[in-house]
């Protein structure tokens, strides 16, 4: 069983949770368990932690990257 942690700023509809579970099981060819976490400070977007893989597409992370680029290039 593969644990998938889903972080978002707002609570996801059950249809979206189901869609994520199906897509993960399809990609990883194994059963998946979704753990949903709501964190308003991520602002928007979504972050997935599938086993040891992490995919952070939250606005918080995007802004963090922009800040780093500004720090380096200014």
């Amino acid at each position: 069983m593969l644990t998938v942690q889903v972080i978002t700023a707002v609570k996801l509809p059950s249809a979206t949770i189901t869609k994520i579970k199906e897509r993960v099981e399809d990609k990883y060819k194994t059963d998946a368990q979704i753990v949903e976490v709501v964190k308003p400070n991520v602002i928007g977007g979504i972050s997935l932690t599938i086993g040891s893989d992490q995919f952070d597409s939250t606005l918080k992370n995007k802004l963090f990257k922009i800040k780093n680029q500004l720090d380096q290039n200014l």
Partner: protein
Amino acid sequence: MEIQIQQIIFQLINFSVVVGALTYFLYKPIIKILEERADKIVKGQQAAEKSIQEADKIEELKEKAIKDGQKQASEIIADAKIKAKDQAIIITNQAKEEASHIITKMKADFDQEKQKQLKLMKSQFSQAVVSVSEKVLMESLTEKKHQQLIDKELESIFKAI
């Protein structure tokens, strides 16, 4: 008047005795005294000459000592001037070097402080940009827009897997 031989002989003998006595008791001592005096005069002259020579020698030594002293004094003054000049050059060079070090250090400190302030300003600026963006996004994202954004990001994530 007749000539009396005996009387003449007697007179001759008498005269000879007187001459002999005078020679023995008067002439020789006087000559001796004169010789001694002459000898004393000669010795006095010699001593005087010797004294003059010694005085000249002393005068020469004195002049030589004065000249040597003046020469040494001149050498000491010249040497002191050279040393003072060298010392002045050394002190000037040291001062220049110290000034150069101070200027270099001040410049480095200034550059370091400038970089520090610039870095701080950049960091504050980027933080301000992020903070403003966060605030704007939080206020502008509706539930529908949240969902649209999540759907879009999910597609990107699954394409990447």
